[in-house]
């Protein structure tokens, strides 16, 4: 808890100003802590008289940190393919492992994984721990969590990373719970703290309005899920050497109370907007479901996928898996083209980490322009066909 020393507090109000959560206020010349305090420590730093301290209760059975070493990446394998984010994680994982001077391993779970282990080694893994069984062909939380937990307990990596995908965000929290480990969701930056080698995990919070850096100081492993597309994969090196360690499973681990009756692949290539390099996104400015035909043509010339604002998903013009934003998906493509989208904060929360943002809107005051790198004020039914022509022209040259 946050303690205020009545002797030292001079009621200056510096803490009140520094608090990101409006949780501390000076009342009758003394700082008073409110219920919204998250113990982030901003006030403690700001307090010149040194009247504030965060008091931690002792947690029993502290983990021996030195027992844990190495960096692990969960390699997501589904229906014969590795998720691209797994290779991206090996890229950042390699950096983290090299900084710490420890090996990098991938944990591959699935059935008939073919040359996936080779792929992982070629992309930077020193070791691949392979758990293969027909029972793991389809994703189910319990067996995936059980085999991952068993492997982590056995080999004790200090860091475990997974993609912030549907699968990663579903079973990794279960693994963290079984291990009593800290888990940071949907990170966009990872680094090693020089003083103590702790993993600095940075992620957006409050719909991207603030960034927070999080550490797990006392528990191991330090676990994080990482947003697809923000880390860079290493170039595949067929010569790279690595070891594949096959792990056994037990019947208990593979048992599940959830039965997958059917696995329906949508227009897969189209639906997974989080893995797209380019997104062409449509809003109410498209005026009708037919408006998406125009967007699909633009997407085609760009090799892009199509996404949308909530307004048009709610209108039934395009299914929910395409929705970007706070109550949809968070995307970080290289290029995001917003067409007829006003730029409501709930939408922007889901796309503001795109590398380049283009907005096409006929209202010059639309808020989307304030996050756009390039903006065109105009009617999209005029602008988009011209843009398609122009891009085709550039392509031919």
């Amino acid at each position, binding site marked *: 808890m946050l303690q205020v020393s009545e002797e030292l507090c001079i009621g200056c109000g510096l803490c009140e100003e*520094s608090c990101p959560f409006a949780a501390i206020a000076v009342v009758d010349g003394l700082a008073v802590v409110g219920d919204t305090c998250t113990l982030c420590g901003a006030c403690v730093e700001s307090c010149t008289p040194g009247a504030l301290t965060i008091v931690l209760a002792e947690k029993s059975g502290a983990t021996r940190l030195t027992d844990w070493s190495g960096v692990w990446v969960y390699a997501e394998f589904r229906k014969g393919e590795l998720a691209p984010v797994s290779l991206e994680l090996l890229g950042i994982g390699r950096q983290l492992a090299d900084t710490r001077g420890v090996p990098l391993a991938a944990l591959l779970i699935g059935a008939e994984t073919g040359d996936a282990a080779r792929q992982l080694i070629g992309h930077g893994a020193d070791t691949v721990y392979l758990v293969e069984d027909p029972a793991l062909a389809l994703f189910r939380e319990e067996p995936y969590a059980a085999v991952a937990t068993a492997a982590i307990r056995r080999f004790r990596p200090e860091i475990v990373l997974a993609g912030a995908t549907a699968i990663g965000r579903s079973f990794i929290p279960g693994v963290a719970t079984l291990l009593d480990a800290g888990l940071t969701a949907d990170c966009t930056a990872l680094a090693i703290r020089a003083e103590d080698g702790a993993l600095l995990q940075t992620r957006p919070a409050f719909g991207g309005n603030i960034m927070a850096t999080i550490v797990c100081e006392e528990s191991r492993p330090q676990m994080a899920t990482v947003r697809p597309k923000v880390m860079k994969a290493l170039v595949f090196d067929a010569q790279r050497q690595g070891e594949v360690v096959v792990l056994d499973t037990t019947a208990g681990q593979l048992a599940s109370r959830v039965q997958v009756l059917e696995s329906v692949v949508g227009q897969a290539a189209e639906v997974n907007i989080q893995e797209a390099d380019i997104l062409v996104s449509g809003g109410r400015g498209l005026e009708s479901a037919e408006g998406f035909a125009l967007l699909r043509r633009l997407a085609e010339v760009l090799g892009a996928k199509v996404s949308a604002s909530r307004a048009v998903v709610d209108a039934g013009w395009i299914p929910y898996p395409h929705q970007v934003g706070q109550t949809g998906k968070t995307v970080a493509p290289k290029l995001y083209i917003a067409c007829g989208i006003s730029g409501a904060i709930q939408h922007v929360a889901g796309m503001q980490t795109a590398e380049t943002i283009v907005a096409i809107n006929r209202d010059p005051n639309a808020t989307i322009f304030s996050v756009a790198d390039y903006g065109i004020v105009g009617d999209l039914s005029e602008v988009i066909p011209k843009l398609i022509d122009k891009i085709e*022209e550039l392509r031919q040259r």
Partner: protein
Amino acid sequence: MKICVCIKQVPDAKEVRLDPVTNTLAREGVQSIMNPFDEHALEEAVRLRESVGGEVVAVSMGPPQAEAMLREAISCGADRAVLVSDRAFAGADTWATAYTLEHALRRIGDFDLILCGKQAIDGDTAQVGPGLATRFAIPYVACVQKIRHADATGLVVERMMDDGYDVVAVDYPVLLTVVKDINEPRVPSLKGKMKAKKETILHLNAADIGAEPAAIGLAGSPTRVVKVFPPEARGGRAMLSGTVDEQVAQLAERLRRYL
């Protein structure tokens, strides 16, 4: 059937902004709302009770102000509500939140079904639901977009995947986290509003639920926020100018590296 819905009070995203100069959250009149995903969880719980019978209990861990949100939950169809509130819960991360909710739920009763939102929009972690189910050692299905079938013994649901969806069958007890697509939440009825006004909301503190002091709040949280800062401002903003053709030509030129 006994159904529990976990709901969280969150600040309204429209109003949360970090002041770029002082690096603090702009706080003027930030409204609190029911986490949007939880509205869908609540609606689904009420629909299930309407079809298979039983009771819906809404549970929230939060400050005393969250009571207003729990009354809203009752007006939307929850039978009763429990507020789990204690200063010692402050600073809880998802581990400590799941721990606290687990102890609260054990105290409240045996549930066949626990419903959570996919994620809370303040932290966007999506970890409390899976964490809670794991603590109870019951199965869970995350990101449910549809309940296809429900009866007295179990459910058949569709769970959203990145490449489509899976149809899965599971028996009670089970925990589901739901996405927005699952339903359209109702507006409170007049009768519901009357009930919400009268209903007493049970308050439970750390001692009531038998929580270990070292496992709740900041002390029980393996993760710790060491820094908050504004996101990097996006640079190089350019409104293109000229005729539409000129603007399109400039844009296409600048997008060349993506072609």
